[in-house]
């Protein structure tokens, strides 16, 4: 009894300490901002940002932009992840494919996805396809590299043993190779989509900063339009927080998937 009291007391102390700095910062921010706001009318306050969430949700701008970005990242991820897994399996199965693909992949892998934004705009315009290309580029390489590493890490002795014991090809794939490679595959997907989310925001912002509006949308562009046209800093912060929450949610979702799909991998 006493022990659990001590434990809960420690938890309470930890929570109290954790909240202290952010709360102090928020109070200082709220307290300092108005002096500036009376002059320019744009200085954001924490309460103003909260209100901004409400306003942007009411007007439909935030849900609409967010949905567009999410659809883009989902399609880019699906395309690039399928390609990456297929390519990795082919490389794993056939030497000639490895000789052909490996140099190309090692050449293009170090190019930051963001560096392709200008070319993607030239090739696909400022719309959805450019964003999908950037996300796909970001997702492909981590997915490919990790899938291949996972496949190669499957213990050959296990495969030989299963074969000796009379397991069929399909059985070996289902019971040995897929479970063996799965942790690495999911890890690659998680790393890729993390970079992809940062890259898509950059892509949408670049479009927003250069094309002066247009119909391309997305949360990155929404943020940039508030900078260029209405100078609503509150709304930009709303966008930043949304970007952070989405990043966190995607990451948590994939970690959960990792645990559910591969409970045997620590």
């Amino acid at each position: 009894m006493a022990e659990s009291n001590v434990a809960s007391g420690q938890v309470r102390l930890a929570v109290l300490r954790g909240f202290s700095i952010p709360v102090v910062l928020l109070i200082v921010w709220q307290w300092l901002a108005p002096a500036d706001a009376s002059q320019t009318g744009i200085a954001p306050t924490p309460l103003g940002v909260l209100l901004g969430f409400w306003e942007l949700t009411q007007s439909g701008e935030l849900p609409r932009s967010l949905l567009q970005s999410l659809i883009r990242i989902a399609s880019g991820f699906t395309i690039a992840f399928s390609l990456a897994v297929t390519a990795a399996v082919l490389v794993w199965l056939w030497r000639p494919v490895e000789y052909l693909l490996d140099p190309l992949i090692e050449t293009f892998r170090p190019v930051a996805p963001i560096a392709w934004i200008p070319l993607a705009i030239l090739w696909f315009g400022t719309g959805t396809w450019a964003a999908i290309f950037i996300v796909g580029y970001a997702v492909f390489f981590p997915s490919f590299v990790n899938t291949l590493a996972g496949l190669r890490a499957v213990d050959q002795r296990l495969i030989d043993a299963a074969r000796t014991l009379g397991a069929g090809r399909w059985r070996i794939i289902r019971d040995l190779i897929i479970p063996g490679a799965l942790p690495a595959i999911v890890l690659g997907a998680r790393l890729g989509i993390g970079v992809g989310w940062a890259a898509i925001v950059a892509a949408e912002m670049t479009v927003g900063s250069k094309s002066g509006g247009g119909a391309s949308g997305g949360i990155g562009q929404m943020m940039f339009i508030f900078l260029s046209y209405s100078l609503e800093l509150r709304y930009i912060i709303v966008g930043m927080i949304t970007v952070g929450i989405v990043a966190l949610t995607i990451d948590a979702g994939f970690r959960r998937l990792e645990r559910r799909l591969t409970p045997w991998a620590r």
Partner: protein
Amino acid sequence: MSLSGLRAVILGVVRYVLALGLFVMVWHAAALWVGKPNTLPQPAEVFVQAIDLVGSGELFGHVASTIRRLIAGFLIACAIGIPVGLAVGLSRSLAQYVTPLVEALRPISGIAWIPLALYALGVGEALPHFIIFYGAVFPVLVNTAGAVRQVDPGLLNAALTLGASRALIVRAIVLPACLPMIFVGARLGLGVGWMAVIASELIGAPSGLGYLIEWNRTMLMSSRVLVGVLTIGFLGYLMDWALRRTAFALTPWWTGWRQHG
């Protein structure tokens, strides 16, 4: 190097050249087929532009400003991230104060700060530095703090029993034990910083590789854009390689590079 080792290296180089040669041929054919040099330039055209950009010194100037920004922002991130990470790893109460704030800010990528930073700092040198710093500091800090917590408690207790002072323990045990993971964090941070510097130059800087490619896009000089893109890839590879070699040289006892390399 043994003879068979030499053979393997030569064979690898030959395969690389063959595969890239095939790629360039496919690219050339595709460029002819598309027939729009503003969209998809021929490989030879890119080569000519590369020579021109190198020869005129333009490329070098942009590379220099990008690298200067990256190194400055990255060093500031290390100078803050490593000590704070060490302190957070060593003191549990400090960790309780700082961790929630770090975890709240970390998911907001440096890139998402660009519009606000653009308003606050304007187009210029401060913006890329801030974005690089913001992107790089969290991987460095979090990995450093994590490394401190993984230090073998047996070693710490042994040192305490032998009467070592706190400063000595930090210097002689904690720091060397953490060095490999600090390098892992630094490598991650440099990678994020590299993305951040290109992104911030695309949007709000008057020079650098990101500026070069975006400027040439608006000029429809896609061959020059490609030169910039390939330079970005080459430099990214070079920096990662250099950091890996440094880490390997400074922490030769660590065997975990296989996992993190």
